[in-house]
């Protein structure tokens, strides 16, 4: 290329202009989320099939989960989605300090979620011998209907684990964004990395919104008044 115009910061050479780059970035994220949807979708479908096949076992398994932790985590995550949205808003109106503040809050909330998940819930499950492959103990009171409780926990750990992995990646992305925001990289004209990462963060949030009832709530406890 013979003539190069002076390009705005963050501009990548393969694009014609900043607008094209921004549109490509957000379309790319949407397409990626489509893939993610099918990824979790396959898992949800498998879970639903087995839940239908082995309903008693899945109900027993669901009862053994700690709903209060799940509910608390749901609130934490929804809060983090709000602060994420506020971070983008502060970039749009050009407030650097608020941007950094909201990003850090989002990270803290994400970390709180993981903390509750790992140190309270999973540890509790481990102590109760509910982790398949790590000293899982079948309890006599489950009887014959409980034959597939280990399968429920296998799904539980896989699904929440995969979700947690997404959270960890998300926190990593947020850390990078925080540094960028702190250096003043985002302006009302250019904030698409924030916007695109926000999409991702909300998506991970939505996955949890599906996971929570699927795993914790539809055990029949509330529908049938518990045991």
């Amino acid at each position, binding site marked *: *290329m*013979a003539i190069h115009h002076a390009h705005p910061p963050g501009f*990548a*050479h*393969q*694009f*014609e202009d900043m607008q*094209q780059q921004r*549109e*490509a970035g957000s*379309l*790319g994220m949407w*397409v*990626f989320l*489509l*893939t*993610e949807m*099918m*990824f979790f*979708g*396959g*898992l949800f*479908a*498998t879970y639903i*099939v*087995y839940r239908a*096949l*082995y309903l008693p076992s899945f109900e027993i398994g669901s009862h053994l989960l700690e709903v209060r932790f799940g509910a608390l985590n749901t609130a934490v995550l929804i809060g983090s989605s709000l602060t994420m949205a506020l971070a983008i808003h502060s970039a749009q109106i050009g407030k650097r300090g608020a941007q950094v503040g909201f990003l850090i809050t989002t990270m803290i909330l994400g970390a709180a979620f993981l903390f509750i998940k790992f140190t309270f819930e999973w540890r509790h499950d481990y102590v109760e011998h509910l982790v*398949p*492959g790590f000293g899982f103990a079948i309890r006599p009171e489950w009887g014959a209907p409980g*034959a*597939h409780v*280990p*399968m429920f926990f*296998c799904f539980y750990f*896989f699904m929440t684990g995969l979700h947690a992995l997404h959270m960890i990646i998300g926190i990593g992305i947020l850390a990078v964004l925080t540094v960028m925001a702190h250096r003043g990289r985002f302006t009302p004209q250019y904030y698409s990395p924030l916007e695109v990462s926000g999409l991702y963060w909300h998506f991970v949030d939505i996955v949890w919104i599906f996971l929570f009832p699927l795993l914790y709530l539809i055990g029949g406890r509330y529908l049938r008044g518990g045991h």
Partner: protein
Amino acid sequence: MSTATIDVHEVPTGSRVNYLNAQYGVKSWLLTTDHKRIALLYLASITLMFFVGGFFAVLMRLHLIEPQGALVQPETYNKLFTMHGVIMVFFFLVPSIPATLGNFLVPMMIGARDLAFPKLNLLSWYIYVIGAIFTLYAVISGGVDTGWTFYTPYSSSFSHTSVVPTALGVFITGFSSILTGLNFVVTIHKMRAPGLTWFRLPLFIWAIYATSIIFILGTPVIAITLFLLFLERVLHIGIFDPAIGGDPILFQHLFWFYSHPAVYIMILPGMGVMSELITCFSRKRIFGYSFVAFSSLAIAIISFLVWGHHMFVTGQSIYAGLIFSVLSFMVAIPSAVKVFNWTATLYKGSISYDAPMLYALGFIGLFTMGGLTGLFLASLATDVHLNGTYFIVAHFHYIMVGGAVMAYLGGIHFWWPKITGRLYPDGWARFAALVIFVGFNLTFFPQFMLGYLGMPRRYAVYPSEFQVLNVMSSAGASILGIGYLIPLIYLIWSMRYGPTAGPNPWGAKGLEWTTPSPPPTENFEEIPVVTEEAYDYAHSTVIRG
């Protein structure tokens, strides 16, 4: 296609800066973000995998020369067909055209400087390589014997081979396909040159777009399925294994939910190449552009609805079977539309029989055979007889090898002068195309007959009345093998010694041909403005040579 005419006459390759000589050294290749160089990285790696997979095929055909098996133990035979299938499907055919020709051509055909996300593109190659290493490790550490379909419970409790590294390898490469597909979709949506509307796009782009949709929607499902299989094996928790409470049929549903669309991942890009070849070598615009374009999308969509036709005899309700049968017939319609339109394009064209065209004509014949025999299999009653026999093997090889690989080789021969700036020896190329065609038919036609007569697939021994046909098939395979080696030799030779090609040796339309060969790193000095439809050969002023 563009109004800009070419003024890059025979500049010797060495003296002009292009993507090949812009930088030297291993590092400049391993860290490149140029889509053209990444295409070549893929080309080298999938060619390697093709010959590894081919090696297992040769051993199988040698073994089957004798009814009692001439070469290996039955257990080893199981490993041979598994590793052949896994490598050919996941490590050669799925990435073949998209990752090589697609990577090279998508930006060039739409008048862009690169794909939308060049670093992601490089990352996807590394992911492919890591996946391939896992699978090759499985090969070395004793092999796998589950069949490329990994059916449970073979793959869960019964197999004592390297199922875990193989499944992980396939799982990992899946992400490479997803990233490639994502990159293509965004690039095609957002980076077309001014004036290049959707209905002016080359049909190759439509085909790649449709393929990318399947990559994006299908691949994650196989990924999750293989991961569950992996968990089952590692943790011994029943998910798919009936002995410990899992459901093996569910595995098949999930597997084919991806793998039927995946067969279209393998053929759609080939169909795209076909539209480019047929138009160029009959010097006509495509017959029924929008039909060909939309049939690609139709195939991509319907292909997600027919997976049950692989399970007609595996415990699926008869009503489900009926519906899957009808839907399978429907997916044949857009495929047939394409074949008719290519044929109609040939009609009254001024046809020349250059090497790429020979491959294209071979494709039409072989793909038609493969597609028509698919209808036998999609009919419930005939499938009960043919299921699990060599008829299946012949059916999908006619499509995947006779179709997809033919198109791949045709495409490589067509764009080779653009990629390398050099011409290959035309006589040898035509000779190789004929050898491949003859060898292919001799290998696989007898397998239709074997299957019809009742010879089951995946057995190491067979009754002696099948020997004649088996020997024919093995003889054909050796001819086919030689046919594949010839291009390998002369193409490599031509990179150094071939005559300079010039920007447009075929007199073809399309933006990629308006650049010098090999193209400069940024593809276009100035982004072209497109003012005409694709394949406007009737008003063409471009001449060959």
